Protein backbone atom coordinates (compact mmCIF):
# COMPACT_ATOMS: atom_id res chain seq x y z
CA UNK A 1 0.00 0.00 0.00
CA UNK A 2 1.19 3.52 -0.66
CA UNK A 3 0.89 6.18 2.00
CA UNK A 4 -2.45 7.44 0.75
CA UNK A 5 -3.89 3.93 0.81
CA UNK A 6 -2.46 3.41 4.28
CA UNK A 7 -4.08 6.66 5.42
CA UNK A 8 -7.43 5.50 4.06
CA UNK A 9 -6.98 2.16 5.80
CA UNK A 10 -6.18 3.95 9.06
CA UNK A 11 -9.35 6.00 8.75
CA UNK A 12 -11.42 2.88 8.04
CA UNK A 13 -9.95 1.09 11.06
CA UNK A 14 -10.51 4.11 13.30
CA UNK A 15 -14.17 3.78 12.34
CA UNK A 16 -14.12 0.12 13.34
CA UNK A 17 -12.51 0.97 16.67
CA UNK A 18 -15.14 3.63 17.37
CA UNK A 19 -17.88 1.19 16.38
CA UNK A 20 -16.50 -1.33 18.87
CA UNK A 21 -16.25 1.20 21.70
CA UNK A 22 -19.75 2.48 20.90
CA UNK A 23 -21.13 -1.05 20.98
CA UNK A 24 -19.39 -1.70 24.29
CA UNK A 25 -20.44 1.68 25.72
CA UNK A 26 -17.04 1.49 27.34
CA UNK A 27 -13.35 1.26 26.46
CA UNK A 28 -10.45 3.53 25.63
CA UNK A 29 -10.95 5.23 22.28
CA UNK A 30 -8.32 7.94 22.87
CA UNK A 31 -5.30 5.65 22.57
CA UNK A 32 -7.01 3.37 20.08
CA UNK A 33 -7.09 6.37 17.74
CA UNK A 34 -3.66 7.78 18.56
CA UNK A 35 -1.84 4.49 17.92
CA UNK A 36 -3.63 3.66 14.68
CA UNK A 37 -1.26 5.08 12.07
CA UNK A 38 1.72 3.20 13.52
CA UNK A 39 -0.34 0.00 13.71
CA UNK A 40 -1.39 0.36 10.09
CA UNK A 41 2.20 0.93 9.05
CA UNK A 42 3.25 -2.22 10.91
CA UNK A 43 0.43 -4.50 9.77
CA UNK A 44 -0.22 -3.14 6.25
CA UNK A 45 3.00 -1.31 5.39
CA UNK A 46 5.10 -4.47 5.34
CA UNK A 47 7.11 -3.80 8.50
CA UNK A 48 5.69 -6.58 10.68
CA UNK A 49 6.17 -10.07 9.23
CA UNK A 50 2.99 -11.92 10.01
CA UNK A 51 0.55 -14.41 8.56
CA UNK A 52 -3.06 -14.15 9.77
CA UNK A 53 -3.71 -17.66 8.43
CA UNK A 54 -0.83 -18.98 10.54
CA UNK A 55 -0.60 -16.73 13.60
CA UNK A 56 2.15 -18.82 15.20
CA UNK A 57 4.31 -18.96 12.07
CA UNK A 58 7.94 -19.34 13.14
CA UNK A 59 8.95 -16.52 10.81
CA UNK A 60 6.57 -14.00 12.40
CA UNK A 61 7.67 -10.82 14.07
CA UNK A 62 6.27 -10.25 17.54
CA UNK A 63 4.03 -7.36 18.51
CA UNK A 64 3.38 -6.53 22.15
CA UNK A 65 0.76 -3.90 22.99
CA UNK A 66 2.09 -2.92 26.40
CA UNK A 67 -0.44 -0.10 26.70
CA UNK A 68 -3.17 -2.70 26.53
CA UNK A 69 -6.02 -0.23 26.95
CA UNK A 70 -5.43 0.85 23.32
CA UNK A 71 -6.69 -2.58 22.22
CA UNK A 72 -9.89 -1.51 20.37
CA UNK A 73 -7.56 -0.09 17.71
CA UNK A 74 -5.31 -3.14 17.62
CA UNK A 75 -8.27 -5.55 17.60
CA UNK A 76 -9.68 -3.66 14.61
CA UNK A 77 -6.39 -4.14 12.77
CA UNK A 78 -6.23 -7.85 13.62
CA UNK A 79 -9.86 -8.41 12.57
CA UNK A 80 -9.44 -6.55 9.30
CA UNK A 81 -6.28 -8.52 8.57
CA UNK A 82 -8.27 -11.72 9.02
CA UNK A 83 -7.10 -13.03 12.39
CA UNK A 84 -10.75 -13.27 13.42
CA UNK A 85 -14.10 -12.05 12.00
CA UNK A 86 -14.70 -8.30 11.99
CA UNK A 87 -18.14 -8.98 13.51
CA UNK A 88 -16.38 -10.13 16.69
CA UNK A 89 -15.45 -6.48 17.38
CA UNK A 90 -19.08 -5.82 18.28
CA UNK A 91 -18.60 -8.12 21.28
CA UNK A 92 -15.90 -5.92 22.81
CA UNK A 93 -15.85 -6.32 26.58
CA UNK A 94 -18.73 -8.82 26.61
CA UNK A 95 -18.84 -12.07 28.53
CA UNK A 96 -17.00 -14.95 26.85
CA UNK A 97 -15.79 -12.67 24.05
CA UNK A 98 -12.28 -13.04 22.66
CA UNK A 99 -12.13 -9.25 22.44
CA UNK A 100 -11.46 -8.77 26.14
CA UNK A 101 -11.34 -5.30 27.70
CA UNK A 102 -7.57 -5.61 27.74
CA UNK A 103 -5.53 -8.09 25.68
CA UNK A 104 -5.45 -11.56 27.15
CA UNK A 105 -3.00 -14.11 25.75
CA UNK A 106 -4.83 -16.91 23.99
CA UNK A 107 -8.20 -15.19 23.83
CA UNK A 108 -7.68 -14.24 20.17
CA UNK A 109 -5.34 -15.35 17.39
CA UNK A 110 -2.49 -12.85 17.16
CA UNK A 111 -2.70 -11.81 20.82
CA UNK A 112 0.33 -13.37 22.50
CA UNK A 113 0.95 -11.22 25.56
CA UNK A 114 -1.54 -10.14 28.20
CA UNK A 115 -1.42 -6.47 29.03
CA UNK A 116 -3.36 -3.82 30.84
CA UNK A 117 -1.20 -3.25 33.88
CA UNK A 118 1.35 -0.78 32.53
CA UNK A 119 5.10 -1.17 32.59
CA UNK A 120 5.34 -4.87 31.75
CA UNK A 121 5.44 -5.23 27.97
CA UNK A 122 9.00 -4.07 27.42
CA UNK A 123 10.36 -6.72 29.81
CA UNK A 124 8.40 -9.41 28.00
CA UNK A 125 9.64 -8.07 24.68
CA UNK A 126 13.20 -8.34 25.96
CA UNK A 127 12.59 -11.98 26.88
CA UNK A 128 11.23 -12.65 23.39
CA UNK A 129 14.14 -10.82 21.74
CA UNK A 130 16.65 -12.66 23.91
CA UNK A 131 15.06 -16.01 23.06
CA UNK A 132 15.15 -15.19 19.34
CA UNK A 133 18.85 -14.36 19.63
CA UNK A 134 19.53 -17.64 21.41
CA UNK A 135 17.74 -19.49 18.62
CA UNK A 136 19.65 -17.41 16.05
CA UNK A 137 16.38 -16.33 14.49
CA UNK A 138 16.09 -13.02 12.58
CA UNK A 139 12.60 -12.02 13.75
CA UNK A 140 11.96 -8.57 15.17
CA UNK A 141 10.07 -7.75 18.39
CA UNK A 142 7.97 -4.59 18.44
CA UNK A 143 6.70 -3.24 21.76
CA UNK A 144 4.19 -0.41 21.79
CA UNK A 145 4.06 1.61 24.99
CA UNK A 146 2.28 4.76 26.07
CA UNK A 147 3.97 7.90 27.32
CA UNK A 148 2.20 7.73 30.66
CA UNK A 149 3.61 4.21 30.95
CA UNK A 150 7.09 5.72 31.09
CA UNK A 151 6.19 6.77 34.64
CA UNK A 152 6.25 3.13 35.78
CA UNK A 153 9.52 2.24 37.48
CA UNK A 154 9.50 -1.20 35.92
CA UNK A 155 9.66 0.38 32.46
CA UNK A 156 13.09 1.74 33.37
CA UNK A 157 14.28 -1.61 34.71
CA UNK A 158 13.67 -2.90 31.20
CA UNK A 159 15.09 0.17 29.44
CA UNK A 160 18.30 -0.19 31.45
CA UNK A 161 18.68 -3.89 30.74
CA UNK A 162 18.02 -4.15 26.98
CA UNK A 163 21.33 -2.64 25.77
CA UNK A 164 23.31 -5.02 28.01
CA UNK A 165 22.50 -7.87 25.64
CA UNK A 166 22.71 -5.72 22.48
CA UNK A 167 19.15 -6.61 21.52
CA UNK A 168 19.15 -5.01 18.06
CA UNK A 169 16.03 -7.08 17.26
CA UNK A 170 13.97 -5.05 19.73
CA UNK A 171 12.06 -1.95 18.61
CA UNK A 172 10.06 0.01 21.17
CA UNK A 173 7.49 2.54 20.04
CA UNK A 174 6.20 5.12 22.48
CA UNK A 175 2.78 6.46 21.56
CA UNK A 176 3.37 9.96 22.93
CA UNK A 177 -0.19 11.19 22.83
CA UNK A 178 0.69 13.59 25.62
CA UNK A 179 -2.21 12.69 27.85
CA UNK A 180 -2.94 10.25 30.63
CA UNK A 181 -5.96 9.57 32.81
CA UNK A 182 -5.48 12.53 35.08
CA UNK A 183 -4.76 15.02 32.30
CA UNK A 184 -1.84 16.32 30.28
CA UNK A 185 1.26 14.21 30.83
CA UNK A 186 3.43 17.32 31.09
CA UNK A 187 1.30 18.43 34.04
CA UNK A 188 0.89 15.08 35.76
CA UNK A 189 4.60 14.33 35.40
CA UNK A 190 6.67 17.29 34.21
CA UNK A 191 9.88 15.28 34.61
CA UNK A 192 8.95 12.81 31.90
CA UNK A 193 10.35 15.01 29.14
CA UNK A 194 12.73 14.96 27.49
CA UNK A 195 12.06 11.23 26.99
CA UNK A 196 14.43 11.04 24.02
CA UNK A 197 17.42 12.19 26.08
CA UNK A 198 16.61 9.65 28.75
CA UNK A 199 16.64 6.77 26.25
CA UNK A 200 19.85 8.11 24.68
CA UNK A 201 21.44 8.17 28.12
CA UNK A 202 20.50 4.49 28.48
CA UNK A 203 22.27 3.77 25.18
CA UNK A 204 19.27 3.19 22.95
CA UNK A 205 18.96 4.19 19.32
CA UNK A 206 16.41 7.03 19.44
CA UNK A 207 14.17 8.61 16.82
CA UNK A 208 11.42 11.16 17.22
CA UNK A 209 8.67 11.32 14.64
CA UNK A 210 5.21 12.62 13.89
CA UNK A 211 3.20 9.49 14.64
CA UNK A 212 0.46 10.50 12.22
CA UNK A 213 2.81 10.94 9.26
CA UNK A 214 2.96 7.62 7.48
CA UNK A 215 6.12 8.54 5.59
CA UNK A 216 7.95 9.35 8.81
CA UNK A 217 6.70 6.18 10.48
CA UNK A 218 7.88 4.10 7.52
CA UNK A 219 11.38 5.48 7.43
CA UNK A 220 11.75 5.42 11.22
CA UNK A 221 10.94 1.70 11.37
CA UNK A 222 13.33 1.00 8.49
CA UNK A 223 16.03 2.95 10.30
CA UNK A 224 15.31 1.21 13.62
CA UNK A 225 15.75 -2.19 11.97
CA UNK A 226 19.25 -1.18 10.89
CA UNK A 227 20.37 -0.04 14.33
CA UNK A 228 22.95 -2.18 16.12
CA UNK A 229 21.23 -1.77 19.49
CA UNK A 230 17.70 -1.57 20.87
CA UNK A 231 15.69 1.17 19.20
CA UNK A 232 12.96 3.42 20.41
CA UNK A 233 10.69 5.46 18.17
CA UNK A 234 9.05 8.28 20.05
CA UNK A 235 5.87 8.77 18.13
CA UNK A 236 4.32 12.15 18.76
CA UNK A 237 0.57 11.70 18.43
CA UNK A 238 -2.77 13.21 19.37
CA UNK A 239 -5.10 11.44 21.73
CA UNK A 240 -8.33 10.75 19.88
CA UNK A 241 -6.76 11.56 16.48
CA UNK A 242 -9.40 11.87 13.77
CA UNK A 243 -12.44 12.44 15.98
CA UNK A 244 -12.95 16.15 16.56
CA UNK A 245 -14.33 16.10 20.09
CA UNK A 246 -11.86 13.48 21.29
CA UNK A 247 -8.70 15.13 20.00
CA UNK A 248 -6.60 16.38 22.89
CA UNK A 249 -9.60 16.02 25.17
CA UNK A 250 -8.93 15.31 28.81
CA UNK A 251 -12.19 13.36 28.90
CA UNK A 252 -11.38 10.74 26.29
CA UNK A 253 -8.93 8.38 27.91
CA UNK A 254 -11.94 6.14 28.42
CA UNK A 255 -15.68 6.45 28.46
CA UNK A 256 -19.04 5.68 26.91
CA UNK A 257 -19.76 7.27 23.51
CA UNK A 258 -23.23 8.82 23.36
CA UNK A 259 -25.46 8.53 20.28
CA UNK A 260 -24.84 12.10 19.05
CA UNK A 261 -21.11 11.73 19.69
CA UNK A 262 -21.09 8.54 17.67
CA UNK A 263 -22.77 10.33 14.75
CA UNK A 264 -20.16 13.10 14.97
CA UNK A 265 -17.31 10.58 15.11
CA UNK A 266 -18.63 8.82 12.00
CA UNK A 267 -18.81 12.17 10.17
CA UNK A 268 -15.27 13.06 11.24
CA UNK A 269 -13.96 9.71 10.01
CA UNK A 270 -16.01 9.61 6.80
Amino acid sequence: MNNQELAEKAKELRRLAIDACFAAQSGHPGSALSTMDVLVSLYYGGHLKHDPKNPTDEKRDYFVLSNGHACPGWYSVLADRGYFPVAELQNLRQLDAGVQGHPHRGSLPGVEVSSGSLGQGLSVGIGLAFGLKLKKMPNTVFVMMSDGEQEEGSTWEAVMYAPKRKLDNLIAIIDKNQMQIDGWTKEVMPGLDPIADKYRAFNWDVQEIDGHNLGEIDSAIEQAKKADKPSVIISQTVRGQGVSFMENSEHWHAGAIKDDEYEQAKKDLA
Partner: protein
Amino acid sequence: MSEPEMKATRQAYGEALTELARERDDIIAVTADLAESLRMLDIRDEYPDRYIDVGVAESNMVGVSAGLSMMGYVPVAATFAVFMTRAYDHIRMQICQNNLHAVLVGSHGGVSNALDGGSANALEDIAYMRALPNMTIVYPSDANEAGQAMRAAVDAEGPVYLRLYREPTPVFTDPDKPFEIGKAHVVRAGTDVSLVATGPQVAFSLEAAEALEADGVSAEVVAVPTIQPLDVETITKSAAKTKRVVTAEDHSVNGGLGSAVAEALAEKQPTSMRRVAVRQFGESGPYYDLIKKLKIDSTAIVAAAKELL
Protein backbone atom coordinates in the same frame (compact mmCIF):
# COMPACT_ATOMS: atom_id res chain seq x y z
CA MET B 1 22.72 -42.29 66.29
CA SER B 2 24.98 -40.07 64.24
CA GLU B 3 24.14 -36.42 63.69
CA PRO B 4 22.26 -35.86 60.41
CA GLU B 5 23.93 -34.03 57.55
CA MET B 6 23.05 -30.32 57.52
CA LYS B 7 22.50 -28.72 54.13
CA ALA B 8 20.53 -25.72 52.88
CA THR B 9 17.81 -26.26 50.29
CA ARG B 10 19.20 -23.32 48.29
CA GLN B 11 22.46 -25.27 47.90
CA ALA B 12 20.65 -28.33 46.58
CA TYR B 13 18.69 -26.11 44.19
CA GLY B 14 21.84 -24.54 42.74
CA GLU B 15 23.39 -27.97 42.18
CA ALA B 16 20.23 -29.30 40.55
CA LEU B 17 19.98 -26.22 38.33
CA THR B 18 23.48 -26.73 36.93
CA GLU B 19 22.86 -30.44 36.39
CA LEU B 20 19.61 -29.69 34.59
CA ALA B 21 21.34 -27.13 32.37
CA ARG B 22 23.86 -29.81 31.41
CA GLU B 23 21.06 -32.21 30.54
CA ARG B 24 18.78 -29.94 28.56
CA ASP B 25 19.46 -26.81 26.57
CA ASP B 26 16.11 -25.12 27.19
CA ILE B 27 16.90 -24.11 30.78
CA ILE B 28 17.71 -20.44 31.26
CA ALA B 29 18.77 -19.12 34.66
CA VAL B 30 17.64 -15.61 35.52
CA THR B 31 18.53 -13.72 38.65
CA ALA B 32 18.47 -10.22 40.06
CA ASP B 33 21.96 -9.70 41.49
CA LEU B 34 21.83 -12.69 43.81
CA ALA B 35 23.80 -15.34 41.94
CA GLU B 36 26.10 -16.20 44.84
CA SER B 37 23.33 -16.35 47.44
CA LEU B 38 21.23 -18.51 45.14
CA ARG B 39 24.18 -20.79 44.34
CA MET B 40 24.05 -19.90 40.65
CA LEU B 41 27.74 -19.18 40.05
CA ASP B 42 28.32 -22.60 38.47
CA ILE B 43 25.62 -22.18 35.86
CA ARG B 44 26.79 -18.63 35.25
CA ASP B 45 30.32 -19.77 34.52
CA GLU B 46 29.40 -22.92 32.63
CA TYR B 47 26.55 -21.52 30.49
CA PRO B 48 27.00 -17.75 30.20
CA ASP B 49 24.65 -17.66 27.17
CA ARG B 50 21.84 -19.15 29.20
CA TYR B 51 22.41 -17.02 32.25
CA ILE B 52 20.79 -13.64 32.73
CA ASP B 53 21.50 -11.22 35.55
CA VAL B 54 19.11 -8.29 35.22
CA GLY B 55 20.60 -6.42 38.15
CA VAL B 56 18.51 -5.33 41.11
CA ALA B 57 15.28 -5.35 39.10
CA GLU B 58 12.88 -8.11 40.06
CA SER B 59 9.98 -6.94 37.91
CA ASN B 60 12.15 -7.03 34.81
CA MET B 61 13.45 -10.46 35.87
CA VAL B 62 9.92 -11.84 35.83
CA GLY B 63 8.88 -10.04 32.63
CA VAL B 64 11.96 -11.23 30.75
CA SER B 65 11.27 -14.75 32.03
CA ALA B 66 7.75 -14.57 30.61
CA GLY B 67 9.13 -13.69 27.17
CA LEU B 68 11.65 -16.52 27.35
CA SER B 69 8.91 -18.96 28.28
CA MET B 70 6.85 -17.84 25.28
CA MET B 71 9.88 -18.62 23.13
CA GLY B 72 9.88 -22.20 24.41
CA TYR B 73 12.54 -21.94 27.08
CA VAL B 74 12.15 -22.90 30.74
CA PRO B 75 13.18 -19.83 32.69
CA VAL B 76 14.28 -20.36 36.28
CA ALA B 77 14.02 -16.93 37.88
CA ALA B 78 15.54 -16.71 41.33
CA THR B 79 15.83 -14.10 44.02
CA PHE B 80 15.04 -13.84 47.71
CA ALA B 81 11.44 -14.72 48.51
CA VAL B 82 11.04 -11.33 50.15
CA PHE B 83 11.99 -9.59 46.89
CA MET B 84 10.08 -11.92 44.57
CA THR B 85 6.82 -10.52 45.86
CA ARG B 86 7.72 -7.00 44.74
CA ALA B 87 7.37 -8.35 41.19
CA TYR B 88 3.88 -9.56 42.06
CA ASP B 89 2.11 -7.58 39.35
CA HIS B 90 4.34 -9.13 36.68
CA ILE B 91 3.94 -12.59 38.20
CA ARG B 92 0.20 -12.16 38.26
CA MET B 93 -0.34 -11.01 34.68
CA GLN B 94 2.67 -12.24 32.70
CA ILE B 95 3.28 -15.60 34.36
CA CYS B 96 -0.07 -16.64 35.82
CA GLN B 97 -2.69 -14.98 33.63
CA ASN B 98 -0.63 -15.94 30.56
CA ASN B 99 -0.30 -19.37 32.23
CA LEU B 100 3.34 -19.77 31.21
CA HIS B 101 5.69 -22.45 32.35
CA ALA B 102 8.30 -20.76 34.50
CA VAL B 103 10.01 -21.67 37.76
CA LEU B 104 10.09 -18.76 40.19
CA VAL B 105 12.51 -19.44 43.00
CA GLY B 106 12.11 -17.59 46.30
CA SER B 107 15.06 -18.32 48.52
CA HIS B 108 15.77 -17.31 52.10
CA GLY B 109 12.13 -18.09 52.86
CA GLY B 110 10.61 -17.34 56.25
CA VAL B 111 13.06 -16.07 58.83
CA SER B 112 15.95 -18.12 57.47
CA ASN B 113 17.76 -14.90 56.63
CA ALA B 114 17.64 -14.37 60.37
CA LEU B 115 20.49 -11.97 61.03
CA ASP B 116 19.34 -9.60 58.30
CA GLY B 117 16.21 -8.89 60.29
CA GLY B 118 12.61 -8.00 59.60
CA SER B 119 13.08 -6.45 56.17
CA ALA B 120 14.71 -9.66 54.91
CA ASN B 121 12.28 -12.13 56.47
CA ALA B 122 9.86 -13.47 53.86
CA LEU B 123 6.68 -14.20 55.78
CA GLU B 124 4.02 -13.37 53.21
CA ASP B 125 5.18 -14.95 49.93
CA ILE B 126 3.10 -18.12 50.19
CA ALA B 127 -0.03 -16.08 50.84
CA TYR B 128 0.67 -13.96 47.76
CA MET B 129 1.27 -16.99 45.55
CA ARG B 130 -1.74 -18.93 46.84
CA ALA B 131 -4.05 -16.18 45.62
CA LEU B 132 -2.96 -16.70 42.01
CA PRO B 133 -4.82 -19.08 39.67
CA ASN B 134 -2.54 -21.57 37.89
CA MET B 135 0.26 -21.20 40.45
CA THR B 136 1.88 -24.31 41.94
CA ILE B 137 3.71 -23.78 45.25
CA VAL B 138 6.46 -26.16 46.33
CA TYR B 139 8.35 -25.86 49.61
CA PRO B 140 10.75 -28.77 50.13
CA SER B 141 11.35 -30.32 53.56
CA ASP B 142 15.10 -30.69 53.15
CA ALA B 143 17.98 -30.56 50.69
CA ASN B 144 17.28 -34.00 49.19
CA GLU B 145 13.74 -33.02 48.44
CA ALA B 146 14.83 -29.60 47.13
CA GLY B 147 16.93 -31.21 44.41
CA GLN B 148 14.07 -33.51 43.47
CA ALA B 149 11.56 -30.67 43.65
CA MET B 150 13.67 -28.55 41.33
CA ARG B 151 13.61 -31.32 38.73
CA ALA B 152 9.87 -31.78 39.19
CA ALA B 153 9.31 -28.03 38.87
CA VAL B 154 11.20 -27.88 35.57
CA ASP B 155 9.26 -30.88 34.26
CA ALA B 156 5.89 -29.47 35.41
CA GLU B 157 3.49 -27.33 33.40
CA GLY B 158 2.51 -23.75 34.10
CA PRO B 159 3.87 -21.45 36.79
CA VAL B 160 5.74 -22.96 39.75
CA TYR B 161 6.91 -21.13 42.87
CA LEU B 162 9.75 -22.96 44.62
CA ARG B 163 10.42 -21.72 48.14
CA LEU B 164 13.90 -22.30 49.55
CA TYR B 165 15.72 -21.81 52.80
CA ARG B 166 18.98 -20.07 53.60
CA GLU B 167 19.72 -21.91 56.83
CA PRO B 168 21.21 -25.41 56.57
CA THR B 169 18.69 -27.91 57.93
CA PRO B 170 18.83 -31.64 58.69
CA VAL B 171 18.73 -33.94 55.67
CA PHE B 172 16.33 -36.74 56.52
CA THR B 173 14.26 -37.64 53.46
CA ASP B 174 15.03 -40.69 51.33
CA PRO B 175 16.72 -39.53 48.11
CA ASP B 176 15.49 -42.67 46.35
CA LYS B 177 11.84 -41.98 47.09
CA PRO B 178 10.28 -40.31 44.03
CA PHE B 179 9.04 -36.76 44.52
CA GLU B 180 5.69 -35.89 43.07
CA ILE B 181 4.25 -32.38 43.02
CA GLY B 182 0.86 -32.31 44.76
CA LYS B 183 1.52 -35.14 47.20
CA ALA B 184 1.72 -34.92 50.98
CA HIS B 185 3.25 -37.80 52.95
CA VAL B 186 2.78 -39.34 56.36
CA VAL B 187 6.40 -39.41 57.50
CA ARG B 188 5.58 -40.77 60.95
CA ALA B 189 2.40 -42.57 61.87
CA GLY B 190 0.47 -41.72 65.03
CA THR B 191 -3.01 -41.71 66.52
CA ASP B 192 -3.52 -38.76 68.90
CA VAL B 193 -2.63 -35.66 66.91
CA SER B 194 -1.55 -34.78 63.35
CA LEU B 195 1.39 -32.44 62.92
CA VAL B 196 0.96 -31.08 59.39
CA ALA B 197 4.06 -29.20 58.37
CA THR B 198 5.94 -27.72 55.45
CA GLY B 199 9.59 -26.81 54.85
CA PRO B 200 12.01 -27.15 57.76
CA GLN B 201 9.07 -27.37 60.15
CA VAL B 202 8.71 -30.98 58.99
CA ALA B 203 11.97 -31.82 60.75
CA PHE B 204 10.88 -29.79 63.77
CA SER B 205 7.60 -31.71 63.80
CA LEU B 206 9.50 -35.00 63.84
CA GLU B 207 11.45 -33.68 66.85
CA ALA B 208 8.17 -32.59 68.44
CA ALA B 209 6.69 -36.04 67.82
CA GLU B 210 9.62 -37.61 69.68
CA ALA B 211 9.07 -35.27 72.62
CA LEU B 212 5.34 -35.96 72.61
CA GLU B 213 5.96 -39.70 72.55
CA ALA B 214 8.03 -39.34 75.72
CA ASP B 215 4.89 -37.85 77.28
CA GLY B 216 2.74 -40.72 76.02
CA VAL B 217 1.26 -38.86 73.06
CA SER B 218 1.26 -40.53 69.66
CA ALA B 219 1.77 -37.85 66.99
CA GLU B 220 1.43 -38.38 63.26
CA VAL B 221 3.62 -36.17 61.09
CA VAL B 222 2.36 -35.18 57.64
CA ALA B 223 4.87 -33.48 55.35
CA VAL B 224 3.34 -31.06 52.86
CA PRO B 225 6.00 -30.09 50.31
CA THR B 226 3.32 -28.90 47.86
CA ILE B 227 1.12 -26.19 49.32
CA GLN B 228 -0.77 -25.62 46.08
CA PRO B 229 -2.45 -27.75 44.88
CA LEU B 230 -2.94 -29.07 48.41
CA ASP B 231 -3.15 -32.84 48.95
CA VAL B 232 -6.48 -32.55 50.74
CA GLU B 233 -7.05 -36.30 50.73
CA THR B 234 -3.93 -37.19 52.72
CA ILE B 235 -4.51 -34.36 55.19
CA THR B 236 -8.20 -35.10 55.79
CA LYS B 237 -7.44 -38.79 56.20
CA SER B 238 -4.95 -38.05 58.94
CA ALA B 239 -7.30 -35.52 60.58
CA ALA B 240 -10.15 -38.04 60.53
CA LYS B 241 -7.92 -40.51 62.33
CA THR B 242 -6.40 -38.28 65.04
CA LYS B 243 -9.21 -35.66 65.39
CA ARG B 244 -6.57 -33.01 66.15
CA VAL B 245 -4.39 -31.02 63.75
CA VAL B 246 -1.44 -28.74 64.38
CA THR B 247 0.00 -26.98 61.34
CA ALA B 248 3.57 -25.69 61.38
CA GLU B 249 5.38 -23.36 59.01
CA ASP B 250 7.88 -20.54 58.83
CA HIS B 251 5.41 -18.05 57.35
CA SER B 252 2.71 -15.65 58.44
CA VAL B 253 -0.26 -17.25 60.13
CA ASN B 254 -2.36 -15.52 57.48
CA GLY B 255 -2.51 -17.19 54.10
CA GLY B 256 0.06 -19.95 54.41
CA LEU B 257 -0.15 -23.69 55.05
CA GLY B 258 -2.22 -23.22 58.22
CA SER B 259 -4.80 -21.22 56.33
CA ALA B 260 -4.86 -23.69 53.44
CA VAL B 261 -5.32 -26.66 55.77
CA ALA B 262 -7.97 -24.86 57.85
CA GLU B 263 -9.93 -24.00 54.71
CA ALA B 264 -9.75 -27.57 53.42
CA LEU B 265 -10.68 -29.15 56.75
CA ALA B 266 -13.53 -26.69 57.35
CA GLU B 267 -15.11 -27.98 54.14
CA LYS B 268 -14.18 -31.68 54.28
CA GLN B 269 -13.37 -32.70 57.82
CA PRO B 270 -13.93 -30.04 60.50
CA THR B 271 -11.21 -30.64 63.07
CA SER B 272 -9.82 -28.89 66.15
CA MET B 273 -6.72 -27.03 65.06
CA ARG B 274 -3.78 -24.96 66.19
CA ARG B 275 -1.56 -23.08 63.76
CA VAL B 276 2.13 -22.72 64.55
CA ALA B 277 3.18 -19.77 62.39
CA VAL B 278 4.49 -16.23 62.65
CA ARG B 279 2.16 -13.51 63.95
CA GLN B 280 4.36 -10.42 63.61
CA PHE B 281 7.20 -8.99 61.52
CA GLY B 282 10.56 -10.68 61.96
CA GLU B 283 13.67 -9.21 63.53
CA SER B 284 17.41 -9.82 63.72
CA GLY B 285 18.91 -12.63 65.75
CA PRO B 286 20.63 -15.99 65.51
CA TYR B 287 18.30 -18.36 63.64
CA TYR B 288 17.55 -20.79 66.45
CA ASP B 289 16.97 -17.98 68.95
CA LEU B 290 14.67 -16.24 66.50
CA ILE B 291 12.45 -19.24 65.75
CA LYS B 292 12.17 -19.88 69.47
CA LYS B 293 11.10 -16.30 70.10
CA LEU B 294 8.63 -16.39 67.20
CA LYS B 295 7.30 -19.74 68.46
CA ILE B 296 7.78 -21.77 65.30
CA ASP B 297 10.29 -24.30 66.68
CA SER B 298 9.69 -27.85 67.95
CA THR B 299 8.90 -26.60 71.45
CA ALA B 300 6.09 -24.45 70.04
CA ILE B 301 4.73 -27.41 68.07
CA VAL B 302 4.70 -29.58 71.22
CA ALA B 303 2.90 -26.83 73.15
CA ALA B 304 0.29 -26.41 70.41
CA ALA B 305 -0.34 -30.16 70.32
CA LYS B 306 -0.80 -30.28 74.09
CA GLU B 307 -3.39 -27.50 73.88
CA LEU B 308 -5.51 -29.85 71.79
CA LEU B 309 -5.19 -32.89 74.02
